[in-house]
């Protein structure tokens, strides 16, 4: 057992409203500058849809992530030798069309236009060239089912969903959407790092944050291609790749990442997970259907004395172990089993987790009238009995969150619905009867667990949402400088800004 600590974020998709406050928070802090305009370290996608960059999940085109060949993993992009061969030409890289040409408007014309015979307007222009631009795409182009026939219908995750259901999803009976916010997954087995010819990408030992060393990056852009989530971006101005840094300057000062802090839907949680690094190789090579379970097994019980001893042996601070014990991420992922990694089949072992969303009950059209597809007998939250009557197909969610394993999704959804049933019975009928307890046990929950899930889902304050351990920067600084000296000098130009080509 090789115990490591990881800062993990968790997204309760049922609560996500797709507002993009997170995206703007991130942009304001990190990517509001030349060369970074098109970077959305945090973006939010409407699902079904094709995301950003468009159809990023189509690995037959982009060749991101890992492939299982027999019992061995290899980068889908190339073998190591193959990578060197493609170092100057890489067809799997997304192009500007897959992203978008950043644009703005010639606003100043509104002030400067001479008197004329018609009203002036600020025309759209490219941020790259400054020339007039015919805007054809953007980083959130298919928002809220915009262009549904082109984008939603071509969501790669609809694979395996029946033709009939796919057709209905374009009709009132079953039209549906949800949102998928995405940041870098700070994977345990990051393909970006594996693909980097310069060795510029590393995973921080203390918290698992994956970073591109801006001074070592040599602009090969293999990371951009190898990341199956397309979460490494090339800065055309500095000639360096950049990516989500999990707001480590904020984490180090006890603050949640900007995207999580600003999440007005309160969908995000942040906490420490302890994991067994020794198990990664074996967990990454199980068959698809077992990936979620194998992934869960890598995560360790922070209350287990053996794990605690192992953590201490690896130099993990007590405050981190305690944070792991109070971690909302641990509870949702491991204890309650309702949070899942995105696209486990990429085998990078993503360390950000998602609680899949509920959706309304489907309907039928009868005599040209809209009718909810409900059984005669009245039940609270019918979907508990008939999960297939939910507008979001189980298969679709499974393609996103459980490498296609529908059973995993069914278990999660049953738990979410059982908690709602339990709370309704408790607060409306004033009693929890045997029926209620039956629902809970059917979903694999107890009253205590249901209460705990309810509370952490709805009531947490900021401190309960984000359990951030103390960082010990003084011990890090001490490795190269006297912290007292650093106290007097920090900020005085000690930084080394990345230089193109260096």
């Amino acid at each position, binding site marked *: 057992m090789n115990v490591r600590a990881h800062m993990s974020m968790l997204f309760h998709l049922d609560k996500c409203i797709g*507002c993009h406050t997170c995206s*703007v928070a991130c942009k304001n802090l990190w990517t509001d500058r030349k060369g970074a305009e098109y970077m959305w370290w945090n973006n939010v996608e409407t699902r079904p849809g094709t995301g950003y960059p468009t159809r990023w999940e189509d690995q037959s085109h982009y060749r991101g992530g890992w492939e299982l060949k027999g019992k061995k993993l290899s980068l889908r992009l190339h073998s190591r030798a193959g990578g060197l061969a493609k170092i100057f030409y890489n067809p799997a890289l997304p192009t500007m069309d897959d992203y978008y040409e950043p644009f703005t408007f010639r606003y100043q014309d509104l002030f400067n236009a001479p008197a004329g015979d018609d009203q002036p307007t600020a025309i759209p222009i490219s941020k790259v060239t400054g020339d007039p631009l015919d805007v054809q795409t953007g980083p959130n182009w298919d928002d809220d089912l915009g262009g*549904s026939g082109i984008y939603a219908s071509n969501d790669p995750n609809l694979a395996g969903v029946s033709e009939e259901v796919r057709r209905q999803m374009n009709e009132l009976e079953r039209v549906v959407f949800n949102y998928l916010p995405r940041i870098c997954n700070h994977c345990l087995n990051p393909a970006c*790092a594996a693909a980097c010819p310069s060795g510029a990408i590393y995973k921080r030992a203390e918290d698992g944050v994956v970073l591109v060393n801006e001074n070592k990056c040599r602009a090969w852009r293999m990371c951009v291609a190898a990341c199956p989530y397309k979460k490494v971006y090339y800065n055309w101005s500095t000639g360096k790749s950049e990516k989500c840094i999990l707001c480590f300057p904020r984490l180090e000062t006890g603050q949640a990442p900007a995207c999580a802090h600003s999440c007005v839907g309160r969908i995000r949680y942040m906490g420490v997970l302890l994991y067994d690094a020794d198990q990664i190789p074996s967990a990454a090579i199980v068959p698809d259907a077992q990936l979620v379970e194998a992934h869960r097994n890598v995560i360790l019980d922070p209350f287990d004395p053996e794990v605690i001893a192992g953590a201490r042996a690896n130099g993990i601070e007590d405050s981190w172990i305690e944070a792991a014990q109070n971690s909302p991420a641990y509870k949702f992922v491991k204890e309650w089993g309702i949070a899942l990694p995105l696209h486990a089949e990429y085998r990078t072992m993503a360390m950000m987790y998602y609680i899949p969303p509920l959706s309304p009950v489907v309907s039928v059209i009868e005599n040209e009238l809209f009718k909810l597809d409900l059984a005669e007998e009245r039940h609270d939250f019918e979907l508990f009995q008939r999960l297939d009557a939910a507008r979001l197909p189980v298969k679709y969610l499974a393609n996103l969150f459980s490498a296609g394993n529908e059973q995993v999704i069914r278990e999660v959804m049953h738990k979410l619905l059982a908690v709602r049933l339990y709370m309704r019975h408790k607060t409306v009928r004033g009693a929890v009867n045997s029926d209620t307890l039956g629902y809970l046990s059917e979903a694999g929950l107890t009253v205590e667990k249901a209460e705990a899930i309810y509370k952490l889902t709805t009531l947490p304050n900021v401190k309960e949402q984000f359990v951030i351990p103390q960082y010990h920067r003084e011990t890090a600084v001490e490795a190269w400088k006297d912290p007292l000296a650093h106290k007097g000098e920090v900020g005085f130009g000690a930084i080394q800004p990345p230089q193109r080509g260096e």
Partner: protein
Amino acid sequence: MTKWIKEKTAPTERKWEEFYRNRFQHDKRVRTTHGVNCTGSCSWQVFVKDGIVTWEMQATDYPALEEGLPPYEPRGCQRGISFSWYLYSPIRVKYPYVRGALIDLWREAREKHADPVEAWKRIMADPESRKAIQQARGKGGFRRVSWDEALEITAASVVNTIKQHGPDRIIGFSPIPAMSQVSYASGTRFLSLLGGVVMSFYDWYCDLPPASPEIWGEQTDVHESADWYNSKMIAVMGSNINMTRTPDAHFIAEVRHAGAKLVVFSPDFSQVAKYADYWIPAHGGQDTAFWMAVNHVLLKEFYIDRQVPYFTEYAKLNTDLPFLIEVNEKRPGRYLRANQVTDYSAVENGDWKLLVWDKNSEKARMPQGTIGYRWPNKDTGKWNLKMQDGATGEPLDPELSFVQAHDAVVDVELDDFAGNGVITRKLPVRYVETGHGQVAVTTVFDLILAQFGVPCGLPDETAVSYDDDTLYTPAWQEKYTGIHRDTLIRFARDWGDNGEQTRGKNLIIIGAGANHWYHNNLLYRAGIVGLMLTGSVGVNGGGLAHYVGQEKVVSQASWSTIAFAGDWGQAPRQQNTPSFHYVHSDQWRYERGFSIYDPKLDGAKDDTKQHTIDMQVQAVRRGWLPFFPQFNRSSLDVVREAANGGAKSDSEVIQAVVDQIKQHKLGFAVEDPDAPENWPRVWFIWRGNAIGSSAKGHEYFLRHYLGTHNNAIAPEMAEGYVNEVKFHPQAPVGKLDLVVDLNFRMDTSALYSDIVLPAATWYEKDDLNTTDMHSYFNPMQAAVAPAWESKPDWEIYKAIAKKVSEFSVRHLPGTVKDVIMQPLTHDTVDELAQPVIADWHSGETEAVPGKSMPKFRVVERDYVHLYDQMITLGRGVEKNGVFAHGLPIPVVEEYKTLTQRQPRMFNQQVYPSLATAREAVEAILALDPASNGEIAHRAFEIEEHKTGLDLAHLADGTRSTRITFDDIVAQPRRILTTPTWSGNVNQGRAYSPFTLNVEQRIPWRTLTGRQHFYLDHENYLAWGEHLPTYKPRPDHTMLDETQKSLAEAQGKLLNYVTPHGKWSIHSTFSENDRMMTLSRGGYPVWLNDKDSTEMGIADNDWVEVFNDNGVFVQRAIVSSRIPAGTVFVYHATERTVGIPKSPLRGKRAGMNNSLTRARLKPVLMTGGYAQFTYFFNYWGPTGVNRDTFVFVRRIEKPDF
């Protein structure tokens, strides 16, 4: 593979990480918020680095509410967090600008005339000059000028207009005070001291739900969003809370996990539908039909088949259901009045005391709490909801229904507007002896049963089943809503059960999607009936949560005194904007009147020639609605003439004015709005987009107000249909002399204004911000200095006022008297003015100010000292106290304290200073019961006196609280429980409206003092809206705005819907770089996929959307989530950014409002009668705009 991965521990290899750490470092954080009518009132931290605002993040320190409620933080959405872009962006107004055509003429005139006022007068006197200025509007040619020059032009025009035309030709529009209360007050205080006109917004925006005053006598009073979490079943209709209440949406997501059911009604699969349990896509605007049938099921299953004690008890005590209605000639009539029956014939205000049938005494009896008890001369302390006889004090047990015991069963006629006819149903009645003989009466409840068609066991009654297609069954509603009866019945049963099991935790969240339809009042009433029947109003987690604008000025009592200069004895000229724009922008000239789409019951459809403008004129004459300019002469001249004629006292002046009116020597301006002497002349716009997103009928604004280019092609058609108004064959073009806009961005209004003054942003000024979505005071605070030459609104209006005072020394010296015309006013004794409609103008009654006609008040103006008055809090506050909800609250001590805290010398006396915005905030907080616990306690004592109830204990726990600006800068502070609102928020309880009414027995401010199912005003009887009813939507054949464009049409006719969008708050943020990038870089036109295929339109194609009103050109978004037959353009586009020329009309295409036109609903003009009595932003017709139809066609890539 893991060997490929570098895990780094050595800090020495990671020094480069400083790169990002340094970016994150900042110099300071400042708490502030955004003032943008988003209802957020979110607490933000603004980060400053190197003196530059770099970004903003939400503050997360709201004081917690009671245990078991989720916290508010982090409040703040995608728009708010993108605001820092504006400060330094190229669309920022950095300097004062004046258009070249004007500045050249001005400088030329100033060369000739040393006196600026004289210079302005000369320019305006020359028709060619005036036209040159007007035609240049909106067409570029701005020039940067000095502040001094811009102020000089502005003040010169103001002073000249007062002299030449009268002060009420100067108008000002600024919306939604709550979002930045001092910035709002800066302009309104200036205008009120001046005698100018302050224009309303809440009704004009169609945010005002008229059903709320109709039923509750209340403008709007709603739940803070945390109270959603107390609900157990939520129906969302016409409110896309995920889009528009972004910081509040989490409570909905969360309450589902607390066991609540969520049902979403919206024709499109909306953002909130995504996590509904049931999504019910009832056809747009047809929610009325759905709820009427729901109510049918509720009445049958929860009142007739079986009784629910909670529901019955609630109905008896809190609604008008047990009150008695006269039935004459098969028609339900008016409430039986106390003075009609012998027992009570002599009671005070007997016209205004109503009766119930008491079970014990088997007689019509007179409960307390009706409006006659609200305004007593003698019989005080009985305005309460105790069910006891007001004359004897005996307890009453009101009979809800006469079904079991009656004198007779009669036929009653009920109106079927959809079927265009009358149906007859059975009704049990009792006979009551009155002074005019025996009359048949029934209860409101029995009428409701008849109206909803619920059989209750009366003899000869027609059986009605859910499957019968008769008014208002589940089967009946199918043809309107498109919703299967089974789905409706399921919903209704869930709704009833939930109400029964939770004692009223049924919540309707509703908004613009429902409120913008022409018959919105009926739609809302249908839903509210479903709430009242389930005992849900006045219950935490239950009731009607109507969210549209940020209308809640928590400190309205103290704030309104400052905002409208009541401290200097002024009576403001408050104008309802729907009427103003309908009349002055000449939109009335383009319609034939209302008969075709909103017929009265007694009129045939086409030939009655009843025009809305006639109703408007009558409403003004009767004192129902305000109108400015008030007279066809300057109001200053009118007083001067009266004085010359010998009138000495104010009352003599008023009598002289009334005499002049009666003798037709003095006319109301509304009777001849197109005559030049009645035009508005100078328009101030601040904090809003009056010519853009606030301009329904935008193209008519351009034509008739501004006199510039426009794209309207609609034919005029009012001629021959109007009677009360003088019709000029030639409509005036360009009524306005000057338009001044205070703005921080070059929006549509700024682009079309003559003078643009650079305003400070929300990160550059101090102010106060409150909302109905939460219960905290939030500050606005300067994080950095106002950038470039910008100034806060408070400072700009001070600067204008100073110039006006300066010019007044010569032009308006000394003090002058002004006579102000005001309508009969809600929350005053005017509520008892007109028991019946009687028109003085046609000789039906005497012309008595404040009774049969408007009120008049004489005030004194001191233009030379206007600036000093503006920045000094006058003694009127000390003398008269502050007011709200009809409660006068003394604040003598607090005024003294404030004088000591922020003294200012004026005329050798010390007053409280209002010289800075911050001082104004302090004054608001110090003098209001919501922020000063002692005043709250005092206010409850006064309410005790009015009601005879024990109330002051509600303020005991917070009596020592005093909230100051420093307090709210430190942390958001919670409002206090006060009788100026209706919710109890003690001990962290979430604000829920009307809980004080239900729990403490304080009456609603209505005719019966209870919530109204029935409305007995003559107008409601005449239009058939006395009972909750269904009226069909006006269609395009009735609205006269697509006929001409039909010839141009190559596309489909679609219903044009403009819901609030995701990437803007109204027009603000819409053009900002961030939001443009996250949307589609424009203002897309959303179309259904099948409609698009039919019209040959593909996603991202350019389309032209048009009707007779105007044209809009943008790209299409094609989506299966949009209902067929509908086009969505998210509300409040700008025409400044990325707008091409219209291929059809040749000129630059317009904006979303280019396709709309104002159309008023006459019944909502009713006045002088209980809750139907005017108040600013409270009552009156609203600016409906959902019933618009447009053509859509694909076009090739257009030119910019």
